[in-house]
């Protein structure tokens, strides 16, 4: 193998084959995905994220939540995700067709968040978790995100969305902790994470 040109063609050819299969194929195939319309209820799935939630994924990306949290549910024979109630069925490509960025994740230091919006609906709970995870679980493995909140003196009436904190976590009397815009967007995103709608290609497993 001394001559350069045959070698070059060989390397590029082998490479092209793999590239076509693993890059070009998904690129073309996933572009064909269409939402599913239920013939009786006329419901369209997946519904896609509501407008208020789409900004939140920026905050999710910027703070690297994906390093500890995954966003996909595996089939019953591939893991205990469904038994852990992280989802009622496995997630498939179509589930993500409306998403700009997809944070599948490859580590589960924290629980899967594919359907966290279906489990936890209360915004105040999320704020508390993000501000002081230790207030919900003293041994929490999740870091705090205090820079998503504003600590300020109460002027007149306390704000409606001020965090209800107790003990050491509570601000001094006359002060309050309120979520900033980033926190609102992030929690909007988290609450919208709900892929429990039905899709024909991923039926709920029977017990």
């Amino acid at each position, binding site marked *: *193998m*001394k*001559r*350069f040109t045959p*070698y070059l063609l*060989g*390397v*590029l050819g*082998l*490479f092209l084959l*793999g590239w076509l*299969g*693993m*890059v070009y*194929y*998904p*690129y073309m*195939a*996933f572009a064909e*995905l269409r939402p599913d319309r239920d013939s009786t209820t006329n419901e369209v799935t997946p519904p896609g994220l509501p407008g208020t939630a789409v900004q939140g*994924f920026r905050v999710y*990306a*910027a*703070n*690297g*939540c*994906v*390093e*500890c949290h*995954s966003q*996909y549910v*595996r089939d019953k024979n*591939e*893991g*205990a995700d469904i038994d*852990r*109630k992280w989802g009622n069925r*496995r*997630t*498939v*490509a179509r589930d*993500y067709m409306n998403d*700009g*960025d*997809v944070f*599948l*994740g*490859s*580590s*589960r*230091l924290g*629980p899967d968040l594919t359907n966290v919006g279906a489990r936890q609906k209360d915004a105040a709970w999320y704020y508390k978790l993000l501000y002081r*995870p230790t207030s919900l679980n003293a*041994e*929490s493995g999740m*870091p*705090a*995100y*205090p*820079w998503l909140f504003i600590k300020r003196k109460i002027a007149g009436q306390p704000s409606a969305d001020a965090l209800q904190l107790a003990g050491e976590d509570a601000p001094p009397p006359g002060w309050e902790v309120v979520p900033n815009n980033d926190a609102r967007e992030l929690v909007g995103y988290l609450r919208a994470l709900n892929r429990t709608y039905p899709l024909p290609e991923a039926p709920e497993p029977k017990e």
Partner: protein
Amino acid sequence: MINDTAAPLRAGRTLRLSQAAIAFYLLTGTAWLIIASLFWWLNTAQAFAPNARYAFAGVPWLTYGRVWPAFTNTFVFGWASLTGLGVALYFVSRLSRLSWRAGVMILTAGIIWNLSLVLGLWHVLGGGSTGRELLEINPSISFGLFLAAVLIITWLLVEFWAYRNELRSVPLWYLMAALLCFIWVFTTGQVIVNSWHTGGPTQPAIQSWYVNGLYQLWLVPLALGAAYILIPEGVQRPVYSLALARIGFWGYGAIAVWAGLFSFLGGPFPAWMQTVTIVANVLLILPVLALFANFHRTLNGRYGLAGPNLPLRFAVTGFFLFVAATFWSAFVSFRTVDFIFHFTLGMEARWTLLLAGFVSFTLIGSVYYVLPRLLDRGWLAPGMMRLQFWLASVGVGLLALDQVVGGLVQGYGLADAKIEFSAVVDIIRPFLLVRFVAVGMLFFSYLLFGLSVLLSMCFRYSERTRTTAEPVAPVETPAEVSVA
């Protein structure tokens, strides 16, 4: 030989620009390694104690999720890629008797690369991460990296062609293939994922292939190329078998491109893509066995030389870590095993063996080999270098073991829905602590590495200093001779 960029610099001859440029790559790459491992170490502390003050809890730019991409990006693009480019430029120049006339361009590209990385790091820590693995740096900044890579590699190909060069030796196959693949993989990530902003399920599919491509198609062939120089030359023997070398090369290339979906097995992708990935990871064992046989036969009876010869010692240890990484990847890709290990610390063991192990060991060995020849310097503190070797070896070994056992515990915990999630978090704390200790060892090892490089920069070459680290006098690479 006189005009070679790689010709040894001896008294009286001035440093040429292309040589200075290569030295710049190696030195800044080494600096990035220390920075990267500092982030890594901090990150392992944060995983162990996310809300402790000593882990910088509450500091936005040092939060877990920003420190991690800071670590991976500086490690892969700062240390491995930059040093790798320097090493590749040096070896290609030497093996093909090329002298880089475009010293200015190589230097410029290196400066652009470094500046983009500094800027990108600053942006990621400041909260501008895109959250896409190894593309976290904002696309307009990482375009600088892309530009620099294109500049270097295009020029290299042009020179190579202009001289009607032949692939005289085995390492050259690997080095050229690595550079070609790098450009292709990097373009795929930068253009398809970043510029076209491909969303939906396409994004993670392509991105996973891209990440794997950076490891398996760029850094691994690069390190194999270096190993094919350091090992035969270290034992003063030609490569054992050219046929085995061919099988290893083409087999590896043909299979590794298909192994891309590794981190998303069980994910929302067509079954055939996952099956192909699994099969590819298992089949990779075959070309790696061919490589192993070849290196082993080359080394046979002379393993002892790896004691005093540090570049050889790093290359040989690195290669064994590569074999381990290949077997581990094959093992964990089986569905029943993946069931347990997916999403756990065990997934990191592959990274540890491949990147912190094979690639880093081989690159460190290459730096120990190249720098004195390039700049006419000697190694002053061989004792420190040996300590560095032992710290790195024990660090990588401990880390991999910890990740495998920790991953097993975590995996069985996660697989049993009756165990509370928070109990799983608690159960792996001791493993996170050991991980912190192991990465600390690596950090100190890299610090010593940087110190050795710094020390050797300060003093000129002399026979005495050269011989302490590497007793074998430099000769023509036997690998070259055998194939010519």
